């Protein structure tokens, strides 16, 4: 039982993997651009969880993992802002937020 409830590094890694897969799956299948952005956040946060987990279990005396996860958060916010801006202009232009309709790069 103690194995089950004693939360260790592996639990965090599995959690991050699951979140990452959800994000990836969402990017592949979702049609709405807002959902795509949310899924991108999932992926980034999975990476962030990994950093924090390794920082607190493996490399305890060093703070670089924690700092890096902070950077990822800031980066994610910036990316989100840009993404929403692009989304708004695309919506103005196309009157839709559907990814499947954005096929201007078709060869």
């Amino acid at each position, binding site marked *: 039982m103690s194995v089950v409830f004693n939360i260790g590094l592996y639990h965090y890694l599995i959690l991050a993997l699951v979140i990452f897969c959800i994000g990836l799956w969402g*990017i592949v*299948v979702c049609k709405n651009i807002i959902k795509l952005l949310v899924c991108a956040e999932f992926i980034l946060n999975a990476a962030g969880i990994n950093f924090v987990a390794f920082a607190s279990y493996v490399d305890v005396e060093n703070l670089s993992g924690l700092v890096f996860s902070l950077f990822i958060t800031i980066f994610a916010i910036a990316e989100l802002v840009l993404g929403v801006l692009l989304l708004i202009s695309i919506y103005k232009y196309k009157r839709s937020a559907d990814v499947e309709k954005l096929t201007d790069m078709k*060869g």
Partner: protein
Amino acid sequence: MNAVLTTISEYFVQSIATVLFLPLWVVLMIFINSSIPFLASKKMTLNLTLGSSFLGFVFAVFSLFYCIKNPQALVENNITWMSTDFQISFGVFVDNLSALMLVFTSLICFVVQLFSFGYMKKDESFHRFYIYLNLFMFCIFGFILASNVIQSYVFLELVGVITYLLIGFWYKKRSATRAARKAFIINRIGDVCLLIGIVVLVYFSVVFNSAQNMVTLSYSTLQFAVETLYSMVSDNAYLAIGVLIFLGIMAKTAQIPMQNWIVGTIEAPAPATALMNSFGIVAVGVYLCARFYPLFILSKSLMIFITFIGIVTALIGAYVAMSQNDLRKILAYSTSSQLGVVLVGFGVGAFSASIFCFVVHGVTKALMFLVGGALITSLKNEADIRYMGACREKLPLYAFSFFIGAISLCGALFSGFYSEASLFNSVLDFGNEFLSFGFLLFVFMSAFYLFRAYFLIFEGDKKDDISQDFSEWTIKCSIVLLSLIVIFIGYILRGCFGDFIFFISPDKLNYLNLVQNVLLLFVVFGAGFIAYQLYMAQNKTYIILKEKALNKSNLPYKLSYNAFYFDKVSDWFAESLFLRLCRFFDFIEKYVIGGIFVVLALTTRVFSYIFSRSQTGNVQSYVTYSLIVLSGVLAVVAVLYILGSLMGV
């Protein structure tokens, strides 16, 4: 006084490069002047141009004075132009020959520019004409003052370009553009030969003289260079180099078989024609021949070649001129034949007599072309001498100056007397009977066509009463000035040659020999008498003779009238043969070489079409593909890793 003069002339000769660049500045000024819409002043253009050529004349006279005072001194100012294994410099070079040429070129430029003001006043491209004249001055001065062979070649090409521009001045006339193109192409053939000759000369000079580091082929070291060349290469190679260089000279001086472009010069405005036929592009050829004289004189066969070409051209040109009806054509063919005689002079070794003959011919021919141009304009652009007649009463000045020019050109009186007699003396000294006889025949024919033109234009019955004297003061002024020059220049120059204008050894002119002079005068006035009988007197015998000679089916007449069909042959060569060859190559270029590229382009198109189909434009599909590929790669890596650990690597 003398010391002051010496100092002044030294100053002028040291700053002679001013003469070269002044016309360029004037071109800029005229350009600015002519582009101001309402203030563009023709007077100002004229004054600037005359100023620059007059200044050139002053510089040239002082340089000549300097060269007379210091017969062996050469003035050479060089800057390095290109420097590789050997140096090519750019500079000015003044010796007695270039000073003499400079004096006459600037003088004739001055007179022609003065004449042009009256002649071109009503033309809408007045300023353009003056710009061309100034560019011409720049090029010809640069050519005369060039210090080495390479620089000469550059300016020679520039003179060719200006000739093209001047002949094609009235570019809306189809005949003018055609003539301009023809002159340019024929000159180009000569230029290519000349360039090959020069390059070979430079090459051998580099090979043989690199130890002494004297390979600039400057004119001051040319004699040394050609002597080394002569001692090093075989006779045939030397002959080939000489012939190549002489081919360039032949094209410039309108010698057989490249003479028919000279007729095209009549398409230019009359003053430009006068310039080109006197001290223009033909002067380039003669000057080049004089400069390369050390090269020619070493080889006996070369000198014979030059003499042969010269005498054949002289005879053919004069023969053709006898039957032409266009006044300007007569004069143009006359240029070709007179220059042939100048080359004969070079060939028999009479350097001074040739240069003398050339200078006198240039001045005289300029006068005759100017008079002809003014006359034709007075007669409402009627150039056919058969429809002129009795112009002497209404246009006495033209008649008088034309007569002076004609008499001088055929060597009877005035300047022509001295030059022709001294050349005849040298030809007789050469000792070839055929050559002497050919020379006499040439004199006879020249006198005949000149007297024929004079009688038909100025004497006889009035055929048309359209003649009116329209001329401006500048036209009259320049014609009077030039007539005076033609009368006196031979008398002034006759003593100078041999004293200071010589190249290799002093050769005195010998023009006073009673028997020869009487013989020449007899031939000239005999020709004049025959012309008078044929065209003026109403003698039955002569009329029948004339009608027989001018029969359209008469072969000698046909040959003469059609200029020995040289024109037709070259036109056939250009239009039938060469153009067809060009079309054939054009076909190959279009359909064979072009086809290869079309096939290449089509292949690319097809593949791009195929591959661009795979781009759906849907971002999610791209993500899916890359995920699949990534997982595939990961799977392969994993399998390899597992296999590796199983194998125990």
